[in-house]
């Protein structure tokens, strides 16, 4: 029985790795939704501070989004740049 060729094996494992890497997007989704809820509470308590609250919320959410972006970068690297093929 013929085994699988090494290029096909590396490509398949890269695809599986890329899929698992994007699971890291679950974290920022939860965290940023919670932060948005807290911002809505803060605006309800003090409506005249609305623009300050919104500015702080956007800044905090963009910093917290970075870990989700790291997962996306790894997935795009594995699928498009394919660094493990050069190690063959």
């Amino acid at each position, binding site marked *: 029985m013929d085994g699988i060729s090494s290029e096909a094996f590396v490509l398949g494992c890269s695809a599986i790795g890329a899929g698992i890497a994007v699971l890291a997007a679950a974290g920022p989704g939860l965290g940023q939704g919670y932060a948005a809820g807290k911002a809505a509470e803060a605006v309800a308590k003090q409506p005249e501070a609305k623009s300050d609250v919104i500015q702080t919320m*956007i800044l905090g959410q963009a910093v917290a*989004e*970075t870990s989700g*972006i*790291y997962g996306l970068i790894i997935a795009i690297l594995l699928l498009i740049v394919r660094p493990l093929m050069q190690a063959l």
Partner: protein
Amino acid sequence: MKATIKFTIFNHSIKLSGAAINSWLIVVAISIFIILVNRKIKKVKAGETPGTLVSIMEFFVEKVEDLVRNTMGDNRVYFAPYIATLLIFLVFANLLGLLGLETPTSNYSVTLALAMITFVMIHFSGIRSAGVKKYLKGFAKPTAVMLPINLISEIATPISMSFRLFGNMLSGTVIIALIFSVLNSISIITVPIIGPFINLYFDVFVGLVQTFIFSMLTMVFISNKMNIN
């Protein structure tokens, strides 16, 4: 649409990537705009109201100076020209996807260069405001054991800033291409109806938020480093 130019000089072939060409395009467009505004400003006499373009530019300069004053403090308004330049360049660069060209910020070299400029500014301002000894002691601030952790967090700053901008822009272009091909395969009539909303969120909103975030983070990091004494 990716544009590249290849040419040969002295038997070396040079290939210019799309990011370089589009950056030059942005610089030429901004320069023409600036020359136009300068000519209009010179014609304004004291005591009469200026025209619309000059008023819009005055509004922009006032808003940027207010932002720098609120974020960094009253005595650091001299950072305002650099922040205004960064804002204008990033707004033009991130919104270039609306014209169908490739955005320069979806190339990692461009965002890494911008983040490195911020990194150099942070440490240079820190040394200049506090002196070399206090700046070096600031790394061991709570206890001396924190020294490697502080160094790692200093290196993580430009890496995370560059990756944030690059990841958002690149994923925006990829997702727009994918959604448009899905809409095209459903039916051609949905493309002009649903397509512009996709572009509105992924191109315009994400681009503007990311420029704001980049500038705010630059200001916050610089002012944190300068306040450390």
